């Protein structure tokens, strides 16, 4: 379902300084599987997530999702692809802190300009699923870290994407909340969602639900 073919990715730092983030990467990820990208900071995990979600393009190589090459999509089609196929849980959640939980969760629905009844129903379903319905009207900044993460997951889930990616999802959580997150991943797997997690949290390293571990170092798979 997700295929990386000879992917190289480099970033420009200043005029003449280029850093290779990914070197000749080849990956295959099946639909409905849970994949954990392991590795230390700067190993290239986040770059892989960026390429899967088409928020950046490879320097060379091809990223193919559902037999479509997404690495060469124009900005407009890349946005459409993300809107319909990808849900992202950022490391620091990247929520809009001064607005309500509901207003945060509907953000991915806004471009679709859906009927308000449908939006309400989708929001209620997502909030209910992640146990934060009672915070619907609360301002995000008043929630704890774990609650904020659930809001971020609800936001990633609201469009019912096929692929959910999470970048260091437990970096800001204690062990109990991290275990709660793992339970959520189990639920998503049951719904046949493809989940890709970039983490160096040892909690993820021996989980039954994980179908594939990809260990990275200095931009290469080891």
């Amino acid at each position, binding site marked *: 379902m997700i295929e990386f073919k000879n992917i190289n990715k480099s970033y420009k730092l200043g005029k003449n300084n280029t850093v290779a983030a990914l070197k000749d990467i080849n990956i295959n990820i099946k639909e409905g599987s849970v994949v954990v990208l392991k590795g230390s900071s700067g190993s290239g995990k986040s770059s892989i997530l*960026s390429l899967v*979600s088409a*928020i*950046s*393009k490879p320097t060379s190589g091809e990223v193919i999702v559902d037999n479509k090459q997404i690495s060469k999509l124009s*900005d*407009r089609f890349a*946005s*459409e692809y*993300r*809107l*319909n196929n*990808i849900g*992202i849980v*950022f490391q620091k959640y*990247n929520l*809009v802190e*001064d*607005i309500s939980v509901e*207003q945060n969760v*509907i*953000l*991915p*629905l*806004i*471009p679709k*300009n*859906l*009927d*308000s009844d449908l*939006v309400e129903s989708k929001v209620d379903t997502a909030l209910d699923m992640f146990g934060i319905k009672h915070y619907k009207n609360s301002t995000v900044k008043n929630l704890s870290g774990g609650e904020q993460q659930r809001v971020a997951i609800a*936001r*990633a889930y609201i*469009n019912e994407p096929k692929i959910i990616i999470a970048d260091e999802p437990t970096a800001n959580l204690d062990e109990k909340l991290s275990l709660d997150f793992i339970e959520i991943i189990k639920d998503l797997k049951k719904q046949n969602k493809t989940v890709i997690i970039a983490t160096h949290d040892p909690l993820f390293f021996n989980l039954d639900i994980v179908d594939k571990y990809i260990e990275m170092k200095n931009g290469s798979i080891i």
Partner: protein
Amino acid sequence: MNKYINLYLLEYSINSLLRQKYKNIFITTILTFLIFILSSMFFITSSIKNELQFSVESLPEITVQKLISGKHYDIEVDRVNEILSITGVNDATARVWGYYYFVNAGVNFTLVGIEQFEKQYKDSLQNLVDSSKGFDESNAYIGQGVKEIMRKNYFKEYFNFILPDGSLKKINIGGTFKSDTNLESNDVIVLSKENMRSIYGMSEEYATDIVVKVANPDEVATVAAKIKLLYPDTRVITKNDLKVSYQNIFDYKSGVFLALFIVSLFTFFIIVFDKASGLSSSERKEIGVLKAIGWSLDDVLKEKFYEGALISVFAYLLGVFLALGFVYGFGAPLLRDIFSGYSELKTAFELPFVLDVQTMVLVFFLSVPIYIASIIIPSWRVASMDADEVMR
């Protein structure tokens, strides 16, 4: 689903503005104030231009004044008959008029003398004579501004004019005088020529000047030249000369407004430049996140458009509304004096309401689209980059 307005996007824009409410309130206040200043200036200009236009149109084609060594003297009334004999002259009237300084209020009134059975040289005066109540030669008919000043000084039914010998002449107030323009009639007191002559100590053989009507406008210059030839001791002023003179005064005063206009625009462009020169790191990150969760460049720009439009249209409407109230409700204190004032020597007059759509459109295009562009352009720069790059 509303195809035209995305209400959720609009709600997000409002929330986005509220998140930085103090900054946005400050910008809105400055924008409103600048739009208010610009609109007020344009409204005053339109009103006074409109008044001047009417005033000039109602002037006689030719005015003849007697000058000796450049000094203005009263002119002999019997010259009217000789002027009437010039080919092309339709009518000629000896006018008795002048200024009267009212010490108590520190203002000048304009006194105009007429005779009831004479054909009047202005429609407004003819209307006064033809009115149902008629023109009583023993009375005075006063403009609105004069009425206000007299009322404040307890002259409601009569007014005492001081004659050249220091004695008082009591003249009853017969009514109000109105003309097409406020500027023209506001400071005017219409009296009989007889009363006027006694107030100025002028004999019956003399008048202040002579006004001449010419049947064919193309012949005005020729007739003026003939009068000048006939009476070399006169200054012959045509309506066109007066138009130029009025326009010069107006243009000079416009310069002061132009300075205000430039200062306002300069301030506005500083705000616009500041907005257009870049986004804060949190604003950049927010755009990156929105793109990462599936918003397209168009969605981001639409949201920014709503933000800019909400502020600028609100500031525009409020600024124009306040300017309308300031100019036409309160008479534009301070600003109006730049144009209409001979300081306190002139009676106050009300600016006539002129809804100048062109002005409103001009102010709109000078403010709203420019401000919206200043919001959209930096957002477009950021939103057209890879979301990944923006969030880094």
